[in-house]
């Protein structure tokens, strides 16, 4: 099966966050995910877009966000990249720690990791790339009962 891939270059705006979420929901539906999984995928992408627009590009109009979806037989792979200074992964807080529980921010990456099957963060001096994978249901590799 050949892979379907589509990518978008987006401005660093709040509208981009909403568009990314809507597009993710549409892609997830087309991939055959159920409503709950669609919600999780679209929310993960929303949180990733918020990170890219706010924390990465800091609403800088000269900086872009790229969003790519790739659907294979096994996975829906979503990659979002900003042009910021690069996320310091070591400084991502644990929002479940007692000291952080009542903080008003810092839950985005946690939610992304909660909702997706695999998450990889690749920071560099020219931006951060966040790669999220959701396994497609019905994938034989996920099934405990192999077809006869």
């Amino acid at each position: 099966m050949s892979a379907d891939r589509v990518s978008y270059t987006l401005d660093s705006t709040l509208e981009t966050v909403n568009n990314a979420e809507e597009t993710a929901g549409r892609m997830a539906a087309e991939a055959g995910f159920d409503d709950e999984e669609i919600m999780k995928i679209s929310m993960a992408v929303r949180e990733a877009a918020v990170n890219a627009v706010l924390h990465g590009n800091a609403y800088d109009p000269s900086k872009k966000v790229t969003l790519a979806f790739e659907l294979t037989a096994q996975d829906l792979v979503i990659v979002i990249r900003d042009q910021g200074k690069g996320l310091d992964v070591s400084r991502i807080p644990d929002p479940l720690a007692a000291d952080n529980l009542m903080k008003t921010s810092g839950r985005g990456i946690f939610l992304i990791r909660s909702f997706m099957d695999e998450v990889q963060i690749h920071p560099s001096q020219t931006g951060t790339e966040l790669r999220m994978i959701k396994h497609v249901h019905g994938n034989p590799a996920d099934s405990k009962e192999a077809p006869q």
Partner: protein
Amino acid sequence: MTMKSSTRQVDGVTIVDLSGRITLGEGSVVLRETVRDLLSKGQKKILLNLGEVNYIDSSGIGELVSAFTTAKNQGGELKLLNLTKKVHDLLQITKLYTVFDVKDDEAVAVKSFTK
């Protein structure tokens, strides 16, 4: 759909009926300003009815935490009513469900506030 907010008084408790999405941008701002406005008027018993809130993101969760803390710091009480499954699940995985006082019956919720 953006968020809508309306308030009503029941036995000294201000019930805020919210509907729509509490997300980064307008939704979070509406919630923040509503709670801030109530507290500034001395209305410190606040029940947020989230029964029609169908979506909340991490910014919205942050606003709920902020509203709860702000009310508490000003000697008030802020409780949550009628969580949808999505909001309930989000508060569970972020371990905030036990932090908030969550009710599912309006009359019981109103009576639970300190007299």
